[in-house]
């Protein structure tokens, strides 16, 4: 019996060592007539409406860009934020449209398009802000405070960078958990500006910290630049999409999508001013 077990493990090890599949090209997508996209459940960056269609900054822009490329159908999958990159690598979908921040770590795993949006940070607290928080660094000052973040989101890096300890951090699975968490287990919820403002609109007993000072990391206030993620091997599809996206960013239709989800004129300008190569290099 032990021998059988050994053979089984050996076969498994052999299987894991084998190679992957080939790249997805623009022609393949065009002849299929549709493309498979993914988003995370995060209002307003990307989410599934109750009728099952995708909406949000990422999906809306992606649909418009693919239309310009002659691909009229995007099949959407909603997956937890932390599984966007694993799902992309496992070829579950062709791209991720969740306005993921273009960071050097993520650039090692996937290829990002030019930025599609930019956004600052935010904090959600109990009504009246009883702990008088104004920025992430305030949480580091008092070790008894707890702060919640969504699994896989980069807010945790900013929290750590300003000195918040790991035992102060509560990991939650989705933004929808933030409301009950802030009212019970945590003193604050750290997320992007827009996410926090959407949650504050919906919850009666919570509010967004205002005025909020963006955390300062490496001597400058942090700002996120969200882009679309593709697999590095699907270069052909990526190039075509990226080119169409840069063109689309110059149009009024593009601005209309972003402003309709609450993004400011400055944030739209800031996104266009940065390029993906610098962001991946950590500049």
């Amino acid at each position, binding site marked *: *019996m032990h*021998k*059988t*077990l050994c053979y*089984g493990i050996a076969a498994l090890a052999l*299987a*894991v*060592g*084998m*190679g*992957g*599949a080939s790249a997805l090209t623009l022609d393949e997508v065009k002849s299929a007539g549709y493309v498979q996209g*993914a988003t995370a*459940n*995060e*209002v307003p960056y990307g*989410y*599934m*409406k*109750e009728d*099952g269609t995708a909406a949000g900054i990422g999906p809306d822009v992606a649909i418009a860009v693919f239309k310009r490329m002659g691909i009229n159908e995007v099949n959407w*999958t*909603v*997956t*937890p934020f932390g*599984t966007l990159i*694993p*799902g992309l*690598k*496992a*070829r*579950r979908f062709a791209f991720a449209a969740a306005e993921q921040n273009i960071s050097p770590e993520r650039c090692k795993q996937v290829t990002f398009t030019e930025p599609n949006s930019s956004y600052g940070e935010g904090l959600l607290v109990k009504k009246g802000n009883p702990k008088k928080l104004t920025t992430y660094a305030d949480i580091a000052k008092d070790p008894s405070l707890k702060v919640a973040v969504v699994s896989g989101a980069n807010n945790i890096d900013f929290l750590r960078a300003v000195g918040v300890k790991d035992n102060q951090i509560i990991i939650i699975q*989705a*933004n*929808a958990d933030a*409301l*009950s968490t802030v009212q019970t287990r945590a003193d604050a919820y750290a997320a992007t500006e827009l996410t926090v403002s959407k*949650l504050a609109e*919906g*919850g009666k007993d919570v509010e967004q910290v205002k005025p909020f000072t963006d955390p300062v990391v490496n001597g400058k206030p942090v700002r996120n630049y969200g882009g679309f993620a593709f697999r590095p091997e699907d270069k052909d599809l990526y190039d075509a999409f990226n080119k169409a996206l840069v063109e689309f960013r110059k149009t009024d239709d593009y601005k209309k999508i972003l402003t309709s989800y609450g993004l400011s004129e400055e944030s739209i300008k800031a996104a266009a001013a940065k390029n993906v190569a610098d962001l991946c290099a950590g500049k």
Partner: protein
Amino acid sequence: MTWIQYLAPLLKGAQITIVISLASIALGGIIAFVAGIARISSNPILSGIAFTYIALFRGTPLLVQLFWFYYALPLIGISFDPITTGIMTLSLLTGAFGAEVVRGALLAVPPAQHEAARALNFSKSYTLWHISMPQAIIEMMPAFGNLAIQNLKDTALVSLISIADLTFQAQSLRNITLDSATVYTLTLLGYFIIALFLMFIMRFIEMKLRRGAAFPRDAHS
């Protein structure tokens, strides 16, 4: 949005949950018999394979199995769509637990009956299918009923591999409405109603089996 408006997406999710649950219970049942019988076979290779399979699937968490089949296996070029992955993983898990139920019930048949069968020169397979199994299968039913309901509840995990089941729809609704209390209450009710149906189906099968020709009604009362 009121709770009435939550029902349409939740019912859509419930359909997927029912499909995945019934498919994996049926498939898991078949696997349970194959693996359970192989496990008590006198052939060491057959029983070794069954032992390894049961040990692997009973000894690892379903969530990790799902992630492994969904996110890790495609990296080596083997990929199934989400529904297939979900049904396959759940069947394999339920089959592993079911195999032990099958094995236990078959071993519970008194050895004197095997001796009698051998004395009458019945073949091994005739003894299994006509002597042991008809008695053992009824003993398996309460445990299978448990497994079926456990399987239904385990289907909630497939929402994490992007299948739009009942739990997935509940999460999406919460994300839009931020109304956790109502959404989760309705979701619990949904699972409970499906579970009641499953209990009913399993009872029905058990009753049918008890009334088989080989069984006088008072034999197991």
